């Protein structure tokens, strides 16, 4: 496999043409979805201009195909002596060069379409100020694998050269451990069984699914209503408003239905997303793979790991599983999607993973804990109160009756309860190597960071906090900032002094 000559500029796999075409087409359709609404404004549109519309559409699709074909032809990549080269662009040409040593991760992934066309997507991640990420949409699987191997080999050779220079000067660098362990074979660390996956689905936040469903229902409702009012001249809203008292049972059935289907959707999406989750240990790194339709392959690099997140909730506790989210160094605030999620982990596996990432035991970590002060409640409470006020105004204007009153009052109680939980859970713990930031309301989230991976530390105090002696402590890391709210100002200051002292007195680098 390794005798492929990578130095000749190459095109993507032939099926790439179709992949690019279909993805572009889907993108276009998504961008212009609102055109679907036009027939509702203009009657007889199809009868009057039908042929023109169809011809226009066909023309557009053909144009899109030509464009996709050109962008396929212009997309060329190769490996030259010192770097990965990529040329692309139909109208605006661009040339990207990535030196081997700047390559951080190489990810292979397959979505449904790629699976169907039997190609894989190839992603090169880099760390640095500019986001020079490279995405190749379609490669043959074998070719992609050998390209990946080749790049990794080149990178390792670079790193070794560098290490030999460093060798004479310092001995305590963590990178130096690598060569001794290099011969280790990739080994399976953890595999998620279907049973546990189901448990993960059941214990996931079901409001995500409910939200998805509600958004869909709202869209469908609008669509249907527009349709009906156009054709039958019927006012659904008036009709609905008049029948509220008698449809109360209907509403409660509807709510239960939504929650039930939402729950089902949540379980389904979780199962699809994390289907057959596998972690393999490959030298110092961990390869995480998951997904049924869209198979995702991500690499956790030991040195690049910044934030180690452990999440539990009451149901997860019942099932004795936890979720882990690993954030790696990036040039922007990491979104939830960019975090590498490992779900359904038992305590044993958690300890194992933690130990292999940080070389210490999780259970041995004892923290000095500093809690957020009770006054934090008011911050959350006022934020929620704004929502309540807006809802009340809306209820007053549209559905002013006892149902909406009771609903809003219940919502207020729930908000108060959640705020209290949030304040109770918010705290920061420190010991000589780790910071443990706890947060969450029903869920409990522990975010663990090694102290030497901090970039800077801030104390922020708004005008009220300045008077009542509180401060927010903000920790900046290479994968986003963490905020610990409402600490006592003297304690926050002490923690800041300590953390800064630790960062300055260590010779460990953040990456």
């Amino acid at each position: 496999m390794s005798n492929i000559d990578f130095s000749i500029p190459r095109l993507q796999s032939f099926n790439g043409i179709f992949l690019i075409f279909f993805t572009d087409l889907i993108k276009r359709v998504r961008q212009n979805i609102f055109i679907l609404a036009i027939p509702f404004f203009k009657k007889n549109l199809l009868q009057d201009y039908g042929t023109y519309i169809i011809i226009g559409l066909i023309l557009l699709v053909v144009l899109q195909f030509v464009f996709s074909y050109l962008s396929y032809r212009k997309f060329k990549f190769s490996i030259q002596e010192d770097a990965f080269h990529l040329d692309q662009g139909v109208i605006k040409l661009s040339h990207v060069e990535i030196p081997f040593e700047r390559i951080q991760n190489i990810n292979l992934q397959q979505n449904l379409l790629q699976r169907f066309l039997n190609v894989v997507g190839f992603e090169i991640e880099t760390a640095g100020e500019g986001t020079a990420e490279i995405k190749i949409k379609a490669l043959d699987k074998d070719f992609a694998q050998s390209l990946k191997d080749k790049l990794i080999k080149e990178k390792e050779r670079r790193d070794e050269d560098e290490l030999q220079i460093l060798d004479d000067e310092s001995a305590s660098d963590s990178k130096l451990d690598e060569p001794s362990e290099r011969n280790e074979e990739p080994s399976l660390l953890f595999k998620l069984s279907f049973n546990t996956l189901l448990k993960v689905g059941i214990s996931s936040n079901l409001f995500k699914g409910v939200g998805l469903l509600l958004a869909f229902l709202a869209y469908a409702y609008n669509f249907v209503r527009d349709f009906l009012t156009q054709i039958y001249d019927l006012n659904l809203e008036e009709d609905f408003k008049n029948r509220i008292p008698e449809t109360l049972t209907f509403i409660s059935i509807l709510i239960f239905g939504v929650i039930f289907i939402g729950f089902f959707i949540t379980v389904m999406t979780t199962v699809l997303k994390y289907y057959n989750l596998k972690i393999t240990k490959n030298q110092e790194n961990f390869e995480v793979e998951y997904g049924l339709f869209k198979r995702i392959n991500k690499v956790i690099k030991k040195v690049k790991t910044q934030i180690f997140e452990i999440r539990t909730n009451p149901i997860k506790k019942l099932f004795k599983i936890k979720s882990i989210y690993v954030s790696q160094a990036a040039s922007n605030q990491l979104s939830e999607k960019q975090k590498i999620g490992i779900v359904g982990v038992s305590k044993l596996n958690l300890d194992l993973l933690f130990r292999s990432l940080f070389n210490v035991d999780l259970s041995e970590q004892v923290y000095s804990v500093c809690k957020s002060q009770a006054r934090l409640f008011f911050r959350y409470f006022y934020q929620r109160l704004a929502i309540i006020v807006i809802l009340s105004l809306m209820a007053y204007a549209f559905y002013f009756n006892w149902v909406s009153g009771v609903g809003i009052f219940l919502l207020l109680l729930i908000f108060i309860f959640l705020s209290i939980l949030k304040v109770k859970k918010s705290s920061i713990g420190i010991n000589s190597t780790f910071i443990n930031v706890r947060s969450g309301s029903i869920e409990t989230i522990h975010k663990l960071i090694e102290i030497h991976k901090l970039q800077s530390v801030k104390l922020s105090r708004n005008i009220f906090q300045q008077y009542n002696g509180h401060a927010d402590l903000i920790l900046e890391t290479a994968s986003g900032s963490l905020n610990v709210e409402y600490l006592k100002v003297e304690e926050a200051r002490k923690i800041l002094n300590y953390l800064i002292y630790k960062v300055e007195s260590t010779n460990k680098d953040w990456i």
Partner: protein
Amino acid sequence: MNFENLEVHIDQLPDFKSVELNSVQKRYKKLIWINEGLVFILLFALPIVAFFFEPVPIWIPIVVLAILSFVLALRATEIEKGFPLRLFGIRQYDIIYQSGFFYFTETVIPYNRIQHVEIKQGPLSRFFNLYSLRLYTAGASSGDLIIDGLDKETAQKLKAKVLAKTTIIDE
């Protein structure tokens, strides 16, 4: 709260509050006012024009003007009260910067976490002969530090100081 299991005594650590801080150039406040003034002149112009515009009901520009005046008052307090709080200080291993009246923020960045340093000058600040120092750390831009309103000498001195520290540790 106890700090017993830490290997150093937390009260004996150097306190960042004990550092003597320097203020930025006084003329920088004029620059802020000019910047702010230009924005507010534009913002105020709109509702005032609307007064003489028939179809707009009279209460809309009045409400807008009231809100704008309130915002202006807040901004004015922020600038006047906040300006004396804009202070920076350097220690052996880190740089400290504080600013803000309504949101008072104190930032400490160790030199060995600074990726690169930049001295910048906008068109208006060229007129005032002022410079701003930008310290970039890894990760999101929320971790970067910008110190505005420095004269050339101070900016360059700070840059040299920071760079000297970062390179020594890099080697």
